[in-house]
């Protein structure tokens, strides 16, 4: 905690003439963070994850001196996309390429206009408080109403060439205007020999009848820790298709809160988590049906090898008096090693009658019948396992419609499999 206090003080000093109200928000948030503290094993919603690595480490905030020379070929760059590039926490406008329909708003203005998006009053998540107190990176963007953005917008958070243990608290705020359509890739990538800590918060609002395709790729260096909070609010008839592909970080914790706020909103959230060595991935998803005729579909898959572990905690809430709710939640996990461990807890909280719901969770190993079938056709054991495991991941990848993103992710998943199935 001392280290965080020190860094917080340094931050206040670094930006002495910040807006007064914004500064108050930071102070309040840091107080709240100190009060809540780091999660312990006793907190029910956090019990399977050990945060001592973050708590006891001496991460410092990234300053201008931490901007490295930026590689010519930006890692993770997906073909035919717009770009917002953030390197070691620092926005690189000169290398970014933003379409006219997207306006980048100043943080202060965004805060003045939408103070509710920064409210931490009802939150008990210490990482949200921490991010709010130290947010030092990330942009608020607004997609104009009726805009149809054909090419995806890729936001790359690159961590590279660290000379010390860095932390960043990126804050992404995104509003999709009425009738607008966009694909946004939130992409965390890193390669460094030094440990680092990313604590991201994204708040995404879909206005009436808008459509967002949100791809979140987390391929941070295995030296890192990544905590994140993503919130979505969906207005009338808006549609969200979200896909999370996560293979990075030693410790990864992602909280998602999705509110279907007004009639006819529709959300699909899929996730694929790939872990090896002693990685730990923990995802908590809350989908809140707060209005009529809304639909939500979730499919979360984990592939775990070596001594890695995973947690999936998914909760669907259907509020009182809502009508015509359709909610599905499915979690499937594949253990590639006898030492891998999965904790799954799908939950439903239903306070209404007019509801169609399904949920379930399964955890298993590679099907030995399928393995024998493939081998009996002359396919090597190694290749047969790769086929079965990539077959397991396929429906998540197939859901991605943009072909450039899909081919990036297919290749990425394939490389991961090839690399981690050698020891199985």
């Amino acid at each position, binding site marked *: 905690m001392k280290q965080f206090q020190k860094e917080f003080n340094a931050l206040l000093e670094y930006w002495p003439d910040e807006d007064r109200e914004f500064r108050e928000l930071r102070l309040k948030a840091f107080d709240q963070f100190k009060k809540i503290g780091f999660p312990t094993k006793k907190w029910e919603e956090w019990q399977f994850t050990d945060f001592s690595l973050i708590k006891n480490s001496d991460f410092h905030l990234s300053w201008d001196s931490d901007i490295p020379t930026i590689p010519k070929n930006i890692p993770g760059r997906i073909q035919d996309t717009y770009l917002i590039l953030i390197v070691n926490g620092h926005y690189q406008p000169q290398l970014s390429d933003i379409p006219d329909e997207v306006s980048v708003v100043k943080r202060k203005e965004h805060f003045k206009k939408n103070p509710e998006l920064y409210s931490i009053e009802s939150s008990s998540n210490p990482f949200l408080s921490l991010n709010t107190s130290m947010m030092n990176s990330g942009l608020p963007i607004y997609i104009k109403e009726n805009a149809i953005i054909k090419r995806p917008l890729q936001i790359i958070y690159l961590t590279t060439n660290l000379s010390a243990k860095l932390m960043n608290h990126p804050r992404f705020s995104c509003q999709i205007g009425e009738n607008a359509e966009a694909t946004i890739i939130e992409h965390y990538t890193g390669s460094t020999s030094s440990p680092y800590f990313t604590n991201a918060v994204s708040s995404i609002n879909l206005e009436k009848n808008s459509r967002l395709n949100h791809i979140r790729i987390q391929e941070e260096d295995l030296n890192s820790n990544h905590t994140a909070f993503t919130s979505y609010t969906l207005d009338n008839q808006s549609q969200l298709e979200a896909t999370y592909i996560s293979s990075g970080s030693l410790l990864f914790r992602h909280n998602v809160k999705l509110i279907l706020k007004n009639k006819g909103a529709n959300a699909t959230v899929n996730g694929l988590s790939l872990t090896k060595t002693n990685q730990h991935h923990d995802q908590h998803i809350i989908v809140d049906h707060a209005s009529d005729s809304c639909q939500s579909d979730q499919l979360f898959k984990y592939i775990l090898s070596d001594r890695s572990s995973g947690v999936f905690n998914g909760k669907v809430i259907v509020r009182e008096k809502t009508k015509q709710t359709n909610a599905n939640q499915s979690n499937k996990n594949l253990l590639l090693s006898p030492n891998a461990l999965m904790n799954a807890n799908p939950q439903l909280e239903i306070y209404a009658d007019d509801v169609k719901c399904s949920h379930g969770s399964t955890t298993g190993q590679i099907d030995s019948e399928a393995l024998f079938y493939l081998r*009996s056709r002359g396919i090597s054991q190694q290749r047969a396992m790769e086929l079965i495991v990539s077959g397991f991941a396929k429906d998540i990848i197939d859901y991605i419609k943009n072909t450039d993103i899909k081919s990036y992710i297919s290749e990425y998943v394939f490389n991961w499999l090839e690399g981690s199935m050698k020891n199985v």
Partner: protein
Amino acid sequence: MLEIKNLHAGIDGKEILKGLDLTIKAGELHAIMGRNGSGKSTLANIITGRENYEVTSGTVKFNGNNILDMSPENRALEGIFMSFQYPVVIPGVNNTYFLRAALNSKLKHNELKEVNAADFMRLIREKLKLVEMDEKYLSRAVNDGFSGGEKKKNEILQMLTLEPQLSILDETDSGLDIDALRIIAQGVNNFRNSERSFLAITHYQRLLDHMKPDFIHVLIDGKIVKSGGMSLAQELEEKGYSWLEA
């Protein structure tokens, strides 16, 4: 080609095959008949190398080589094939992709050039016609959403594509309607030649009527108790198995 001597084998400490002898020469089609549970699939699984079976004594030779220590994939590459009694669904693995991967491992093993996607499509379309299978089954996952009959056709399609020396057909006729049975029998018959051997496991004479086996064997309690020609099948159809039981 296949030579099995005094084979004793079982699973989980339970003996299922109790001294089985069987020799199949190149070009021959042998049929094995027997009640449910007599050990027919066990025999097929042991020849193809499924794990978990224990062979306690005896030998299984293929082209003169002892195969019991070989992996399933190496047996397949040497030319052994089984049409599964219960073909497995493999979610997310595209049928065409799988078929080409299987063919290419075989081509590679035989030091031949692997086939590219376009050439493979030409080849597989020809084979599809032979089993009167719709092309839509190529784009699905392996056996996913296939009817019982389509699954069995898919097995024969694989046989025709991989061109094994020894094909074991484990109840390929079970659950087929008359048309499908005719198509599959025809597929097998056209595939027969003087180099290829077959072991057909079945309960029904009707498959044998189509295929005209050279030998018929009756398996009871893990042993072949009687062997003969087509007339034996007829006798079994009339009298059942009890007259052969001790």
